[in-house]
């Protein structure tokens, strides 16, 4: 008789496989460690860019910024994404994970790789930012660490694919994979492409740092590096959109408005992934405008279209579900009556709004070939991606963590009042940070810059007073966001250690990756995952009107903001 390896969570009904569960926990916990490190340094960075405080010395600032970007954008996000992949394949499909031993090998490589990068940073000779543009050199272990980390993540992606194959063969589910798993699949496919690009550029750069290669062309580096850097952002989008659908299903029982539309939209992410990520090299020499215009958009911006579609269908499916429950008055009763005190919902919804309205709109505007001229490398860029990746992705991951702590870790959340407010504090702080970085960037303030008063420079220049004020306000927003981030880490780690055990088999060790007591795993093979229940007929009147109005407001803001920037562009020196 085969061993009993599954347990069913009595609260959610989800099945967890012993090995997949441990892998998920280990990856998620390591992710939070890097969020803590990266977030703390983000605070120091923000307080240094606040002209009135100017906290760190120049050298420490550039070091802190390099660590902030790397630890948080690469390590926190990817560790957590690995946990999401195990969840979407093993847990959602009720399937044993493929080759868990390799899963641990992947994890180990990611731990060693990220540690090497951290060591390189703290040795002080690798403050090259996470982009490490050649020919500015970092120590060889910096590149080696990144390579090992990427190989580890690659193993995780293949285990995800392997698990899908096993689930299919062993018929653990009926019909097609759930939408959430489908979204995770697109993320994994993009991740494989991303990591391959990373290998193509980082391995030669590592050899260059060791002296085996004597020249790396900087334009070639930027072109291939951004195939890594940009595509990895598309992984984040696919992952967090999948989680939005998951949360809508978990909290509201929402079904996708149409499977076809949502799945096609995911597919567009793969098909229209910018292979060379043109929008990052719009201001570079050596590439023609035709190449830039075509590759930044593939003539129709279908990846943008895909996000706009998810932007409608995620709130839309929540609206439909809420209206069926009777919240049917006016345009927005469904939204008003949503569980705003539940951080799983509030985190996800705030993430979605800020991701779309701020991150999405600014991203497309600055990715327009000519408009990039007034934005490239200004602090507008960090303003944009804090809305996308620090709110969109990070806050979504935080929201799902509030669900996973009781279900996966079997611990009650400590400190309910803090849980309730945390998404608002983090989201609100980030909103202020993003908006005022965007504002300062519009006035030309550079990113990655220690002193925009140029006090040590031989020549002089004064930025507009408003720009200085905006950086000050951004610093305040950054402080608030850091408080929110710290609160999250406290709640998460606190719950893992002190939270009430929802299952007597949950121990301190089982919070950090060890299995729970073996008596917990009492299912040999979960029942086959059946199809979603068929929708009752006669509810054709249920429509997502409120969401459509929100979408129109979004489109109007998008159009207005685009043309404001076009107008601004027309005011600079004529050039060509």
């Amino acid at each position: 008789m085969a061993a009993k390896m599954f347990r069913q969570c009595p609260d959610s009904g989800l099945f967890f496989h012993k090995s997949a569960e441990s892998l998920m926990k280990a990856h998620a916990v390591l992710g939070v460690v890097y969020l803590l490190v990266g977030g703390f340094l983000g605070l120091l960075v923000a307080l240094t860019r606040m002209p009135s405080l100017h906290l760190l010395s120049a050298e420490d600032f550039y070091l802190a910024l390099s660590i902030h970007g790397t630890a948080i954008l690469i390590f926190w996000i990817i560790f957590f994404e690995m946990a999401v992949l195990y969840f979407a394949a093993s847990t959602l499909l009720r399937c044993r994970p493929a080759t868990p031993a390799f899963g641990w090998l992947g994890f180990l490589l990611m731990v060693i790789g990220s540690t090497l990068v951290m060591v390189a940073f703290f040795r002080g000779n690798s403050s090259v930012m996470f982009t490490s543009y050649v020919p500015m050199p970092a120590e060889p272990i910096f590149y080696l660490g990144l390579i090992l980390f990427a190989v580890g993540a690659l193993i995780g992606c293949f285990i995800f694919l392997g698990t899908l194959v096993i689930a299919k063969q062993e018929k653990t589910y009926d019909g097609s994979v759930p939408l959430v798993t489908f979204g995770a699949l697109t993320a994994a496919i993009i991740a494989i492409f991303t990591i391959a690009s990373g290998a193509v550029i980082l391995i030669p750069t590592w050899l260059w740092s060791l002296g085996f290669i004597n020249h790396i062309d900087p334009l070639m580096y930027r072109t291939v590096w951004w195939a890594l850097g940009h595509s990895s952002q598309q992984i984040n989008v696919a992952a967090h959109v999948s989680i939005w659908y998951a949360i809508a299903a978990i909290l509201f029982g929402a079904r996708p408005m149409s499977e076809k539309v949502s799945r096609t939209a995911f597919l567009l992410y793969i098909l229209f992934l910018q292979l060379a990520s043109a929008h990052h090299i719009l201001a570079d020499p050596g590439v023609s405008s035709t190449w830039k215009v075509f590759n930044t958009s593939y003539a129709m911006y279908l990846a943008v279209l895909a996000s706009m579609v998810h932007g409608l269908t995620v709130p839309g499916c929540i609206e439909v579900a809420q209206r069926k429950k009777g919240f049917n008055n006016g345009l927005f009763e469904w939204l008003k009556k949503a569980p705003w005190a539940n951080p799983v919902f509030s985190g996800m919804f705030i993430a979605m709004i800020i991701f779309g309205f701020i991150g999405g709109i600014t991203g497309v505007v600055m990715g327009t070939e000519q408009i990039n001229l007034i934005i490239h490398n200004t602090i507008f860029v960090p303003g944009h991606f804090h809305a996308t990746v620090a709110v969109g992705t990070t806050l979504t991951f935080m929201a799902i963590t509030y669900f996973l702590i009781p279900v996966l870790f079997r611990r009650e959340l400590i400190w309910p009042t803090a849980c309730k407010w945390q998404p608002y504090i983090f989201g609100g702080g980030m909103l202020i940070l993003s908006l005022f970085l965007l504002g300062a960037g519009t006035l030309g303030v550079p990113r990655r810059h220690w002193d925009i008063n140029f006090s040590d420079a031989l020549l002089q220049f004064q930025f507009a007073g408003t720009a200085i004020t905006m950086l000050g306000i951004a610093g305040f927003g950054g402080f608030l966001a850091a408080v929110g981030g710290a609160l999250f880490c406290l709640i998460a780690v606190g719950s893992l250690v002190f939270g009430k055990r929802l299952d007597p088999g949950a121990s301190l060790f089982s919070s950090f990756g060890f299995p729970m007591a073996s008596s917990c795993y009492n299912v040999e093979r979960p029942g086959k995952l059946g199809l979603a229940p068929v929708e009752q007929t006669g509810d054709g009147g249920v429509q997502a009107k409120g969401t459509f109005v929100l979408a129109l407001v979004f489109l109007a803001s998008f159009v207005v903001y685009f043309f404001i920037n076009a107008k601004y562009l027309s005011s600079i020196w004529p050039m060509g």
Partner: protein
Amino acid sequence: MSILPPSQKIWWKEPIHGIEMMWIILALIWCLVLFLWMPYWHVYGKQNLSNESYKTSPEQFEAKANTMAKAYTVRTDAKSNTPVVHPPAGSDVYMLGRLWQWWPILELEKNKTYRLHLSSLDWQHGFSLQPTNINLQILPGYETVVTITPDQSGEFAVVCNEYCGVGHHTMLGKIYVK
């Protein structure tokens, strides 16, 4: 339920919601406008990215900048000991980036068109002309040529906005427009 297999096994034949369809059409139209705006601006807009660039080497580029500076230096900025160069209106002008300065200082005439050549002698730099706010990536080994027409007079700063090491924030250049 998005976490369960679709209720219809043949889900790809289900009809699409009216609202979804309307949104897809609206969004697609806007995406096409966004794309078409770029070629439109190439034809009718006055601010475009340069398509002219050449492979070069630090030695070659430095020599060209030196030649220009030798011929047209009008004075020296005392504090930074940098030549201020006033090249003939309409000519080819050079500015190089290196750790950590933009060299030399240029003096241009308002409403005259210049071919501005830019390159780096060492690491990557960012040419950020303020306050007019024009931002270009400058790479070693590549010579960018932008045709610019300063249409405002005054003192403009060239900030470096690509991180280039610990002196990055001291890297400033100047362009005067008369």
